[in-house]
């Protein structure tokens, strides 16, 4: 029962969603709209699951005096503050908005900016022209890096042209090939899930 009901639901919903794509009649589309509304509702509840899981994990850390539990306290304080502020309103200028704009936005932007440092470090440490393919890769990377900034336009007009060619021809061709493969992989996995062959999403391989 525990396995058969989800499998049956999955099969029915999957087959319906596949069939409705070809049937525009409103009697079928009405059910489709209902399913979409259900999907949105379920996804909204997924946010709740995440919060509950997080609270449980860190409460356990605090309760069992695990090393690093100070950060768990930081998490609870931050969570409580933002939820409390959120209930008071999130209009521009509110405490919630202040915390979001002046704490979360700069922190996340800073973390993303770390990429620049890591790319430079990787460029020095690991980008090696050991093989012909690697050499071609580095040459293409150099041309595109120059072509995507104004300096490339200044150095020589062929650099932006070469950049465009690399992006519009070999890059696009390879992306298309991989996209087709990935798309087929997605279809195959969806089909296997609908037919009950693929059961990893249920938390088991049987």
């Amino acid at each position, binding site marked *: 029962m525990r396995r058969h009901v989800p499998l049956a639901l999955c099969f029915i919903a999957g087959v319906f969603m596949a069939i409705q794509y070809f049937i525009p009649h409103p009697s079928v589309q009405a059910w489709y709209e209902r399913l979409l509304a259900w999907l949105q509702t379920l996804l909204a509840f997924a946010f709740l699951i995440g919060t509950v899981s997080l609270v449980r994990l860190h409460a356990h850390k605090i309760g069992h005096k695990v090393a690093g539990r100070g950060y768990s306290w930081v998490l609870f304080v931050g969570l409580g503050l933002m939820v409390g502020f959120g209930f008071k309103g999130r209009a521009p200028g509110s405490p919630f908005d202040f915390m979001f*704009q002046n704490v979360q936005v700069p922190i996340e*932007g800073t973390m993303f900016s770390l990429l620049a440092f890591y790319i430079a470090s990787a460029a*020095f*440490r690991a*980008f090696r022209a050991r093989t012909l393919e690697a050499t071609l890769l580095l040459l293409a990377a*150099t041309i595109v*890096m120059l072509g995507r900034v104004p*300096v490339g336009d200044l150095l020589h007009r062929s650099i932006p042209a070469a950049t465009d060619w690399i992006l519009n021809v070999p890059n696009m061709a390879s992306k298309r090939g991989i996209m087709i493969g990935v798309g087929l992989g997605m279809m195959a996995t969806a089909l296997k899930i609908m037919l009950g062959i693929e059961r990893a999403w249920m938390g088991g391989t049987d």
Partner: protein
Amino acid sequence: MNRLGKFLQIDRRWIFLAILIAVLAPFIWPMGLPIVITKPVQDLYNAVDAIPPNGEPLFISIDYSPSTVPELDPMALAILRHAFSKDIRVAVLTLDPAGYGLAERALEAVAAEFGKERHKDYVFLGFQPGISAVVLGMGINIRNVFPEDAYGTPLSEVPMMEGIRNYDQIPLLITLSGTAVVEAWVIYAHQPYDAQIGAGVTAVMATDYYPFLDTGQLVGMLGGMRGAAEYETLIDRHDAGVRGMDSQSVIHILIIVLIVVGNIAYFGSRKRAPETAGGDAAA
């Protein structure tokens, strides 16, 4: 280990310092490098420009989170300025919960700049969960997914949304995203409903979407800070995008130098000692 080999073991913090200097210096000594407009950006600009004023609204979906603000916020501001300067009505929504605050901030700031009136010239629809469900739902009826705006006003009471039912009445929808949400718009809005979709993405994601540009599934695209800088140049309003291009130019050159120097040091050290390290698969 010879000198070149030791050089390869340099503490990565020296490299981090070089990057820091390379980023900061152009802000202190700006170079004012000229920006050349590329076709994907021009196409998107033209598509926005073709929207009749005070008519059906341009939809902008701000689908990014704070981490990609430096690249995507300048795009949002530039597109909003373009639209409002031409009296094009704008409807803004977001599919990212963290995008709510960013979307509201950008929209209110630019609307105030141009003296635009909420519900008459612009509307903020807010956030709804479930990316594919929202995009598909908008193809049937926008009010199914957004029954009211972000502030609780029913869409039936918003004058500029009168007669706007689904993608048939939306001349263009631009998604600004640092994730694969752009694909969701193409797959679930353009393919089944023929919606006209434009995109603004981070530089690293831009290469993924050239196939969509080629087939016309995207009408145009802004890629990274360069795309934002080009759009700012087109609307003749230089802002963060253009300001950042000087730094980006210097950084790119520095990275190329690091690659060249690293390879010289590597091959130079190899000549004297046999290779003992493995691990780098392709580079």
